[in-house]
């Protein structure tokens, strides 16, 4: 186990869709780049296995197809969960380049005939989803990143940021196979580590059977918070609908192609509850689905029997682009979209952005900069990027800004002192304990507490009880034992998961209203209060405590 020291202009933490675009941007600006990923950037992150959707306005002549119309949509569904001026800068202004870049790396968003296949769902005024084949998007991005000369550290988990004189100046990580420890000095650092997806008790038993990547565990958000950065929108518990036994994506494709939500009584309930019917915003669909289940109207199904053969064929292919193994799952379970409704259910909770167009995590400005000098953020780990479109556009924006910042520094005034072996050893301590708890014995109860006390029906009392129980678990963190480096990675993830849970409960307690129900549904404050709460809850660390404040959106 060696200590390896590296020096670079831009360090990118997380090489998923956002981080890979960040690395490309920084390298194309002339910066030296290091990318570190727990997996392998050729296949890591939420879309490692593939993806089929990208949200965009294209200015093709329809009134809903413009930037102004898109921002109105953000305002309507976002309901104060993002600053339009920041979304304009980190997404709208980057969109044309983002679409061109997808083609440039060999994964265009167009069909074979050059056209865009567009569908509409989730409260959109027109078909903003571009349906495309992204099964090889990550390998192509990985190749582009390596070709640009970036130093890629696959299977390296970053565990902390280096700070000096109030700025972030790099990070620390270890290789999950060799155990070698990396001390990376960087003029600019970008957090691109995704959401927190292994946070809630999983209705499908296995906590790794999650909609989004279960290895996204909030590590970047917690590192940023510890370094002094502000986070926002952390109170939102995102959920969606998915096939009963397999947390595979496909909601937008199924609904976009015309799928209808059906309850156990044979009623198309969304068509009764919402003026937009099945194409209502996602949180509305989840809310009414939970209501149906509570009323005893379950199970819930998605019905595609009415679709034409051509649409069914397109849908089957598209579902396999979004989740490569979903067609296998349907086959092995005996499901057929064209002949019978498929049972679906509400997903596990995630700490994630409240909509597909407003995010959560590290608070960023128009240049993707955090509130700490030298630290930037993008993708699902930042509060103004969301989903595939946000990662591609916002990731590149963060890379350009980080490179500009790094290359603009005349010199690094002074480095932090070298780390001692003892300081590094605290990250690997679970390996050397003679006895201790496996990480699952700590993580499973965290998920249970989150589901029971910080879930879709919250109150001040439940949140306080949740916080107390999460606090009680905290004392066991230093008693976890890892049998190998893989388990060491998981124990570090458990620490992040617990921290995210505490932040979520704290911010949910602070926001005394409900917003985008059921993502933040306070039973003791069931109404949305736009007079006092149309904006972001900002959370920061003050000593060992969390401090919340409110920032109205503009």
């Amino acid at each position, binding site marked *: 186990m060696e200590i390896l020291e590296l020096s670079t202009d831009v360090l990118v933490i997380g090489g998923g869709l956002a981080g890979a675009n960040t690395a490309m941007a920084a390298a194309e600006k002339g910066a030296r780049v290091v990318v570190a990923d727990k997996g392998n950037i050729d*296949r890591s992150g939420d879309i490692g296995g*593939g993806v089929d959707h990208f949200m965009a306005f294209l200015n093709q002549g329809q009134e809903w197809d413009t930037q102004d119309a898109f921002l109105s949509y953000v305002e309507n569904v976002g309901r104060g969960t993002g600053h339009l001026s920041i979304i304009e800068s980190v997404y709208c202004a980057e969109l044309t380049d983002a679409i061109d870049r997808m083609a440039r790396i060999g994964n265009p968003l167009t069909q074979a005939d050059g056209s865009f296949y567009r569908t509409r769902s989730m409260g959109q005024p027109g078909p903003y989803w571009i349906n495309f084949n992204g099964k*090889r998007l990550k390998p192509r991005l990985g190749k582009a990143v390596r070709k640009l000369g970036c130093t890629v550290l696959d299977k390296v988990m970053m565990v902390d940021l280096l700070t000096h004189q109030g700025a972030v100046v790099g990070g620390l990580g270890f290789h999950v196979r060799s155990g070698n420890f990396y001390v990376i000095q960087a003029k600019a650092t970008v957090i691109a580590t995704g959401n927190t997806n292994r946070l809630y008790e999983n209705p499908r038993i296995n906590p790794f059977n*999650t909609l989004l990547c279960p290895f996204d565990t909030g590590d970047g958000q917690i590192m940023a918070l510890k370094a002094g950065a502000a986070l926002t929108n952390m109170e939102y518990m995102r959920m969606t609908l998915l096939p009963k*036994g397999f947390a595979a994506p496909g909601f937008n494709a199924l609904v976009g192609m015309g799928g209808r939500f059906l309850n156990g009584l044979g009623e198309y309930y969304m068509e009764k509850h919402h003026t937009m019917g099945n194409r209502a915003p996602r949180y509305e669909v989840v809310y009414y689905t939970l209501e149906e289940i509570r009323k005893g109207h379950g199970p819930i199904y998605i019905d595609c029997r009415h679709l034409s053969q051509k649409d069914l064929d397109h849908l089957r292919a598209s579902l396999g682009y979004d989740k*490569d*193994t979903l067609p296998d799952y349907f086959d092995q379970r005996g499901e057929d979209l064209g002949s019978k409704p498929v049972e679906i259910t509400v997903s596990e909770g995630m700490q994630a952005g409240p909509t597909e167009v407003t995010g959560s995590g590290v608070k960023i400005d128009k240049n993707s900069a955090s509130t700490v000098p030298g630290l930037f953020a993008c993708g699902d780990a930042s509060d103004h990027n969301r989903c595939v479109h946000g990662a591609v556009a916002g990731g590149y924006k963060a890379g350009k800004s980080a490179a500009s910042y790094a290359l603009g520094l005349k010199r690094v005034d002074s480095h932090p002192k070298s780390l001692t072996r003892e300081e590094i050893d605290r990250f690997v301590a679970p390996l050397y304990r003679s006895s201790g708890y496996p990480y699952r014995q700590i993580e499973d109860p965290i998920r249970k507490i989150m589901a029971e006390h910080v879930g879709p029906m919250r109150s001040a009392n439940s949140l306080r009880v949740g916080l107390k129980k999460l606090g009680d678990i905290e004392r066991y963190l230093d008693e976890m034992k890892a049998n190998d480096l893989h388990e060491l990675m998981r124990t570090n993830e458990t620490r992040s998961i617990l921290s995210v849970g505490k932040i979520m409960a704290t911010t949910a307690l602070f926001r005394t209203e409900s917003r985008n129900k059921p993502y933040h549904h306070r039973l003791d404050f069931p109404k949305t209060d736009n007079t006092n709460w149309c904006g972001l809850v900002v959370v920061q660390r003050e000593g060992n405590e969390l401090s919340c404040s409110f920032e109205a959106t503009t």
Partner: protein
Amino acid sequence: MPPIFDIKKCSGCGLCDSICMADAIYLKDYEEKEIPFLKYPDECWHCGSCRQDCPEGAISIQFPPDMLSI
């Protein structure tokens, strides 16, 4: 517990081990070559990357009973 490795087809190139985002696939010695095995089966996310990228077409996917029966 996907994935399932066809050891007769496998060349032992190690690509599945390298790209697995779960760090769930490892290599072990087997006769004259190295072959993959699923060291952490519960942690597979069923992303299908290993099957897609296997140059020998040696990987298939079989979902476990808990996912197929609930």
